[in-house]
């Protein structure tokens, strides 16, 4: 009997079908990978752009910190194309690759108060608003100095056209300022 008559074609076919299904699922996974936004909504980088050309792009939405976004299978230099839900609507556009990370933000102290790693400098991860408020309470000097930073951030925001105290400020006008600055200085190629 010839060998091909003995060969388990049916098993091979079944194996190929399984492989194809696995591959298809894997490809879908890659295309639809979920990433999280690691910058604040008051960062100009949180604005989703219609294209990667700084001068020609238009804002299509804004992201907030820790928001999940879906990665689409397109990159252009430092930018990636994403799909995200903004104000209840689904938008697609471009953001900088570096503003996204695979895991959600922890946003909490990662060492115990006594210093689980037993020294002060290790305490840096976990630095957040709560600890900053603790520093204000502990040190009047630090409280005064931090107040200066607060004032500076608020006034700077006002000058650039956004409310630094708002939870989700609109940063699109700030990007437009940068474009206008470049255009007025004739810096654009």
């Amino acid at each position, binding site marked *: 009997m010839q060998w091909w008559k003995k060969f388990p074609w049916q098993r091979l076919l079944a194996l190929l079908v399984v492989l194809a299904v696995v591959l298809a699922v894997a490809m879908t996974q890659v295309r639809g990978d979920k990433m999280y936004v*690691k*910058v*604040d909504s008051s*960062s*100009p*980088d949180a604005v989703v752009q219609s294209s990667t050309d*700084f001068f020609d792009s238009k804002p299509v939405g804004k992201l907030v910190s820790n928001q999940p976004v879906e990665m689409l299978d397109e990159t252009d*230099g*430092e930018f990636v194309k994403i799909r995200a839900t903004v104000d209840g609507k689904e938008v697609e556009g471009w953001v*900088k690759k*570096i*503003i996204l*990370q695979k895991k959600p*933000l922890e*946003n909490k102290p*990662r*060492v*115990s*108060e006594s*210093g689980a*790693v037993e*020294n*002060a*400098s*290790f*305490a*840096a*991860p*976990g*630095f*957040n*608003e709560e*600890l*900053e408020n*603790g*520093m204000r*309470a*502990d*040190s009047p*000097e*630090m409280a005064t*100095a*931090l107040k*200066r*930073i607060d004032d*500076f*951030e608020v006034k*700077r925001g006002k*000058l*650039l056209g956004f409310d630094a105290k708002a939870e989700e400020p609109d940063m699109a006008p*700030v990007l437009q300022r*940068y*474009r206008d*600055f*470049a255009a*007025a*200085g*004739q*810096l*654009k190629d």
Partner: protein
Amino acid sequence: MKTNTLNLWFTRFLALAAVCTLVGCSLFNKVVESISAIEKAQLVDKYEPSEQYYLGRGVSAVILDRYPPIEIKNAQTERQVAYLNDMAGYIERASQSVTRSALRLGDHTERDHDQQQQVYDLALYKGVQVGILDTEDVAAHGTPGGFLWLSYGAIKMCESEDELAAVVAHEMSHIILDHGMANYRIAYKSEVRNSTLSDTWFSGSGAVSNFGRLCVTYAEDAFNGYNPEQEFESDNWGTRALTASGYDPNAMVAVLKRVEAYEKAHDVDPKDYLAHHPPITERIKTVQELIKSEGFKVNPASQKPEAVKARNDRFTAAFK
């Protein structure tokens, strides 16, 4: 006889199994310990942008205690702050594709794979924020999280917008290339230095005081400036960023020459900020060679007389 031999081999096998189990357990424990240590190290080495931002606020607070910021109280100061922030925001955006690789930036600094990856991944939580220090001293400080503080002295040293852009690009690179955090990781991992200021501001124990002392230590170190290798790297990145933004790359050379003249004229104190920078003639030479070897070209459109005038008019209106 045959049974005895079998028993002997069985006993040997059991003994070997026991030894292997013991050694295996010990090795396993060591592996677990090592993984745990690595994870812990990664835990404390990896800073999220929000953490860098809050650290930057703390460090900035100490900087502003030493050099008070200008009060944004009238049209002129508003114009100055808005102008500087527009410039820095634009340069940051335009230099997006400028390399962050230590090797490609002249191989001045050493970063292992993880450190380099951190630099590649570095994002600023709220973008770049530029403030002005109300002092005629020549001082500029970039902190983690995107804060950039320029003194009136440093700004007024510049004679054109392109030169000011060179200062901004250079300082911004210290933030983008994670120089401050890199120094912190190396020098302060084991202890936070006690100083009069840190003891005055924070005398207690616990996480809050630890954070406070860390901010003070970090700021006091920042007053001394970065190390020479990092300065060379920042000159390199800054020159590339200037070119990418349409400014004249030779402005970096021009501003370094102004620093050289300032150092000569002011007989810089060894404790002063500028005294910790590498020899200025060496930096000028290195930037000139970079411009030549990389073939950085001046953007013809931005160097037309009317374009230069437009930029210098707004620079003069803000600061002269």
